[in-house]
């Protein structure tokens, strides 16, 4: 086919022009492909990493978080708080303070100890039954509970530092309430006194004789010699009443005590631990969807654990590793990649196991709620809020908003800038292609005039020029896609890591206690190239080719053959 050979020759033999056009179009398309892929990668990473709830089959989380203000009202009410005590804030701080190691309980000085302390972190615990209450609400498909705790892992040598304290002698006066003498005792005492010749007044009544001991009246009312009376009383009082008044003097004492040691090799690492309802593998603090290696917790809820990827890497844990938590050995059955924010944790145990370990029987600190339909979420949120006024109900977006870091920045950037950059790149590529096509036609005016002189119709000339541009567009698209894919692959291969961190909790700065829980996840930047992206890139190149072709063809069509021939090269 002559016309195709002509087309090929134009492209091959005008190499410089073709290459410039291809590079221009290619770079434009490559940029679009790379940006689109990157944007998609970021979206995907963000979706996976930052969408904390969708990943765990949840629409809403319900937690009980202390307020900064010390307003009571916590713990009571519908949740039936921890121990029913008021002042949730104080409770929480108290619970968290327990991490201050009581060294005396860890063992003898010089011995090595390992201990994990479980703290409620930011969220107050409540009875697990709250989940049933929420599950019964209209529009709620399912509700499960979870327990996410802040764990402090301490290990080191129990230190020995002895301080000497001297206590001062103290005299203590002790008043005792004595049991009432029985009627028999009373009769005995009376007989005894009479025998000793001490006359006493008749007691008022036998029934309430006890009251007589209160004052000296009944007893001391005899009026005989007081000393004789006293000794007689001493003798005759029943043994149980004999000493109702005691005076004790403690001896001065020297105490030796192990004190808060300044120098120890005790190291503390903090991590988060989550209790999972292992019978609900698709919805919970972590779900089967996040298992990247191994398996999910078995429904039986044995001594099994899941560890987050980052935690596993840091502590060289893998499936089959053993995890010792205060003497209980858990086997790692799976590695998970939980979403950030919300209830993400480093280590997951079956809920019952964690409750036992942390001494939080039947307590949870989060209820995960799955609405019947996504359109119900807002309504369900209101219902829960109404039913449990103290609770904090967070939707996916609320939680996502707490997440920050370079991943979020990059994602935002890619949304804001990526699109603009793509458009600029595409437009620049189009303009370049169109200009080159125009200049190419400009330079070929005489050639095109010759073709007309040879008998080519307007249509044939236009078709040839347009086909050249279109072919350039297609080739440019191929070059661009190849370049773009190369860039995407390079990003996948050598791409920088982005981080995302989520901080949940409150900083009780004014109280000197921070219960902020921070989780950071590093996400390797990836740029997955999808069919859609490729199609878009190719479509853009074609469009560029078409625009260029139309521009060139329009110019070529306007040529009158005689004028065209008159042009001198």
């Amino acid at each position, binding site marked *: 086919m002559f016309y195709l050979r002509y087309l090929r*020759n134009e492209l091959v033999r005008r190499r410089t022009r073709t290459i410039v056009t291809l590079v221009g179009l290619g770079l434009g398309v490559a940029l679009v492909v790379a940006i689109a892929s990157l944007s998609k990668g970021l979206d995907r990473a963000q979706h996976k990493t930052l969408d904390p709830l969708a990943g765990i089959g949840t629409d809403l989380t319900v937690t009980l978080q202390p307020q900064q203000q010390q307003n009571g009202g916590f713990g009571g009410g519908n949740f039936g708080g921890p121990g029913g005590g008021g002042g949730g804030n104080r409770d929480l701080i108290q619970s968290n303070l327990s991490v201050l190691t009581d060294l005396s309980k860890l063992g003898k000085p010089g011995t090595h100890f390992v201990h994990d302390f479980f703290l409620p972190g930011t969220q107050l615990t409540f009875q697990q039954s709250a989940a049933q209450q929420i599950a019964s609400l209209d529009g709620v498909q399912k509700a499960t509970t979870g327990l996410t705790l802040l764990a402090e892992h301490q290990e080191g040598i129990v230190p020995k530092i002895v301080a000497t304290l001297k206590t001062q002698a103290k005299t203590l006066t002790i008043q005792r309430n004595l049991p009432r003498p029985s009627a028999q005792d009373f009769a005995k005492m009376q007989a005894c006194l009479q025998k000793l010749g001490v006359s006493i007044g008749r007691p008022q009544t036998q029934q309430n004789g006890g009251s007589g001991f209160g004052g000296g009246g009944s007893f001391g009312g005899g009026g005989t010699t007081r000393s004789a009376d006293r000794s007689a009383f001493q003798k005759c009082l029943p043994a149980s009443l004999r000493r109702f008044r005691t005076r004790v003097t403690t001896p001065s004492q020297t105490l030796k005590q192990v004190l808060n040691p300044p120098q120890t090799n005790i190291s503390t690492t903090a991590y988060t631990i989550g209790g999972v309802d292992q019978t609900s593998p698709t919805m919970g603090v972590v779900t089967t969807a996040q298992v990247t290696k191994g398996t999910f917790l078995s429904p039986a809820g044995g001594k099994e654990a899941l560890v987050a990827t980052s935690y596993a890497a840091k502590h060289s844990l893998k499936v089959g590793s053993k995890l010792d938590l205060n003497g209980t050995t858990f086997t790692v059955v799976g590695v998970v990649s939980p979403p950030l924010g919300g209830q993400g944790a480093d280590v997951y145990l079956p809920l019952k196991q964690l409750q036992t370990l942390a001494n939080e029987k039947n307590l949870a600190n989060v209820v995960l709620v799955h609405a019947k339909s996504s359109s119900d979420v807002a309504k369900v949120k209101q219902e829960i809020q109404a039913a449990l006024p103290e609770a904090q109900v967070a939707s996916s977006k609320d939680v996502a908003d707490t997440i920050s870091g370079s991943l979020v920045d990059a994602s935002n950037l890619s949304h804001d800038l990526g699109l603009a950059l793509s458009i600029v790149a595409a437009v620049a590529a189009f303009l370049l292609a169109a200009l080159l096509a125009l200049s190419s036609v400009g330079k070929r005016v005489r050639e095109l005039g010759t073709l*007309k002189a040879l*008998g080519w*119709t307007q249509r044939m000339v236009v078709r040839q020029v347009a086909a050249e541009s279109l072919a350039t567009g297609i080739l440019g698209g191929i070059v661009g896609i190849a370049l773009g894919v190369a860039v995407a692959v390079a990003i996948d291969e050598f791409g920088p890591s982005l981080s995302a961190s989520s901080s949940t909790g409150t900083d009780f700065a004014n109280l000197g206690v921070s219960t902020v829980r921070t989780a950071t996840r590093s996400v390797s930047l990836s740029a997955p190239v999808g069919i859609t992206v490729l199609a878009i890139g190719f479509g853009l190149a074609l469009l560029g080719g078409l625009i260029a072709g139309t521009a060139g063809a329009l110019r070529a069509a306007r040529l009158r053959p005689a004028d065209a021939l008159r042009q001198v090269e």
Partner: protein
Amino acid sequence: MSLYELSGVARYFQRGPTTVRALDDVSLEIEPGEFVALEGPSGSGKTTLLQILGALDRPSAGTVTFDGRDLVEQPDSALAELRLRSFGFVFQQFNLIPTLTALENVEAKLAPAGGTRERALELLAEVGLAERADHLPAHLSGGEQQRVAIARALSVEPRVVLADEPTGNLDSATGGEIIDLLANLAAEHGSTVIVATHDASLASRAPRRVAMRDGKLAGIVGAIPA
């Protein structure tokens, strides 16, 4: 019936405020099989007349009848069809397509007319360039390029070959060869030849010479063949 009948043909160009009369009241008849030279200095209107004869341009006034058809009234597509099948052009600058080989340049005219590659090769052989069929114009000498152009012009067996200063870019020896080749091949293919030239020695080879001055016919030397 004459092949061409021109009557009162004029062609004006607007150059800014002034109107240039490239052709002014030209009346002329050309018979089939003639070899006609349009003679005159540059700017005398030869090229314009040649373009009107070759259906590349339309006159501003007057009538041009080719083979009984009034070219002025034909639509562009009909003119293109005429150029394709009835006319062959040879230019001073050769006007070969630079990206096409000698063979492909011949095909550029043959292909739209439905001709084959083999036919193109035959024509190259006729002009003595069979061996250089795969050469690009840049690798051919001026004379060779003009031979390719002649092969291209004759490829569709046109009624008329229109040559505009075909030897203008060639030395005189080569120019002579080219004119001989053109004349001989045109005779063989039965084509009428109209050559525009300012070269008197070249024009003298033509049986009929039409002299032009300032867009007007200045005289016709040689008889119209009976």
